[in-house]
């Protein structure tokens, strides 16, 4: 009785919070906002009329399959490559004038890049001199990434993960308002990955906007507030991650026999459900109406025995597969 009450109240509160936050998004200040941003290399359009936004002060996850155009988009935002068409505003400055915003941006794009003959410290010194940054930041950022003990070694002697850490340190050097990280967890050990997650959260909580592209969806799900999914250069989804996970709740059912999966899918489709993924003897579909019990009834009316039935929120991974055609059956 008591728990039932809580459930309905809690649901109401949760729903209210989703609704209110969805209203807030429109009003959110954006650190990055693109309008029909496009990049073509020759005839090949790799970023296609992309309209994305990165809300200020949040951790935004930028995901999509290999070759989706993530790095290309990030390079355009950093003024490294020219846009073919479209526009963007970054920290209030126009993408056509990177000088207006880049001093407030820190970045790590497509792997760390350093002078192998200089030490980690020496490499950061070069960047500090170039950007007129405080040298006192160097020991601070080295400590943030846990590299302080090896900072005087030549980068040529660093392991992959150490270089990656140095790359993140370099990105943090200017105390950026916007931190752009492309695959920051590449090559990190489990401790390093966990530390990266904590670091991103801490940086964002201190007011820095973080835009991070990664294939580590499970990690991203734990730290991201906002998610942008692209495929083949086109936007597939953007929005608040919590709301997305909530909206796309799904149910997993299992049947005895792999052959029955197709029949079950047909039955559910007829009843207005949308199957989203299938595996050996298992089927995942979108819950739009009804209860687990009604689904069970549908199955038994069709002469199918369910061996498994779970309802729950999807993970970022589920949604990713669905939106990028990586796991869809349609």
């Amino acid at each position, binding site marked *: 009785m008591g728990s039932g009450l809580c459930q309905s109240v809690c649901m109401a509160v949760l729903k209210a919070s989703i609704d209110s936050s969805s209203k807030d998004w429109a009003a959110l200040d954006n650190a990055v906002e693109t309008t029909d941003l496009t990049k073509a290399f020759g005839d090949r359009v790799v970023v296609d009329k992309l309209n994305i936004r990165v809300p200020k002060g949040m951790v935004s996850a930028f995901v999509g399959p290999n070759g989706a155009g993530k790095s290309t988009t990030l390079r355009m935002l950093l*003024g*490294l490559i020219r846009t073919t068409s479209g526009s963007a505003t970054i920290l209030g400055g126009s993408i056509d004038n990177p*000088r207006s915003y*880049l001093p407030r941006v820190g*970045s790590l794009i497509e792997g760390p*890049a350093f002078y192998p*003959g*200089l030490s980690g410290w020496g490499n950061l010194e070069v960047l500090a*001199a170039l950007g007129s*940054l405080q040298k006192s930041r160097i020991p601070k950022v080295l400590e943030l990434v846990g590299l302080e003990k090896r900072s005087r070694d030549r980068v040529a002697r660093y392991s992959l993960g150490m270089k990656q850490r140095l790359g993140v340190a370099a990105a943090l050097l200017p105390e950026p308002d916007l931190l752009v990280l492309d695959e920051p967890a590449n090559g990190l050990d489990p401790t390093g990955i966990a530390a990266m997650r904590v670091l991103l959260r801490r940086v964002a909580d201190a007011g820095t906007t973080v835009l991070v592209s990664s294939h580590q969806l499970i990690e991203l799900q734990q730290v991201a507030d906002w998610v942008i999914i692209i495929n083949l250069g086109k936007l597939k989804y953007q929005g608040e991650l919590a709301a997305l996970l909530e909206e796309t709740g799904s149910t997993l059912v299992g049947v005895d026999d792999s052959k029955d999966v197709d029949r079950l899918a047909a039955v559910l489709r007829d009843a207005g459900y949308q199957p989203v993924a299938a595996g050996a003897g298992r089927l995942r579909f979108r819950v739009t109406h009804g209860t687990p019990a009604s689904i069970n009834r549908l199955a038994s009316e069709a002469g199918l025995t369910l061996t498994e039935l779970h309802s729950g929120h999807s993970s970022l991974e589920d949604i990713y597969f669905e939106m990028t055609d990586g796991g869809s059956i349609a």
Partner: protein
Amino acid sequence: MLRAFRSELLKVRRTWLLVGTFGPLLAFSVISVVVQFQLAYKVGPVLQRAGLQSREDLALSDGLARVLVDSAAFGGVIVVVLFATSYASEYGWGTLRNLLVRQPDRTSLMVGKFFGLIDLIFVGRFLASIFAVIAAVVMSKVQDIPMNAWFTPEGLGALAHSLVNLMLASIGWASLGTLAAVIFRSPGAAVGSVLAFFPVEGLVNAWWSDGPRWLPGQLFDAVANGGSAATSYGRALALTMGVSLLALFIGNLIFNKADVTA
């Protein structure tokens, strides 16, 4: 620009860069001095016309200056290779993307780096000259060639002038190296192209009678030598500066236009 210059100075402290630049500069210049003195007794009018110094030439007040210029003959190769590798490595290592985020003004970055590297060359030339002078003094004792005229005001003036000319000629080579790097964007291709430049220019020069008046390498050498049979010093210097500015201008246009995908 000043920021790019200062950050480049931090980079040139790399041990291997210093060894790789100063080592050959110093070694070539000392070996060349020794060889020049050893062979001087064999040099008659024919070899003199080919630019070699006889014992009498060496004893002149500008004898030391001549030795210095000849000892720097390989300098051009070292300079052009250094600039080609240094700019192209920024693409090869991918460090360019870091630099451009911290300094989006590409012209400033390119020019600041140029001054940082040319500084390294000036220091290298200066050190090589000191070594060349020491070697010359030792060799003049060994070969018994009088050197009193060298250290007169006239002799020292000629020496200083030669040193300045060598540095001016370096600017020409440096700009060609920079242009090659920006065009090819990879250290291997950039260095290959600048090394190919020498024999190609040599061939063209052999076929084209006006080559010594117009070919860049010939002009740079004329500047280093304080003029040549084909061109006056002033004309060579003006054209060298013109070629350098043009190369840097074109390099800068390409650098500003191109996408940085490295």
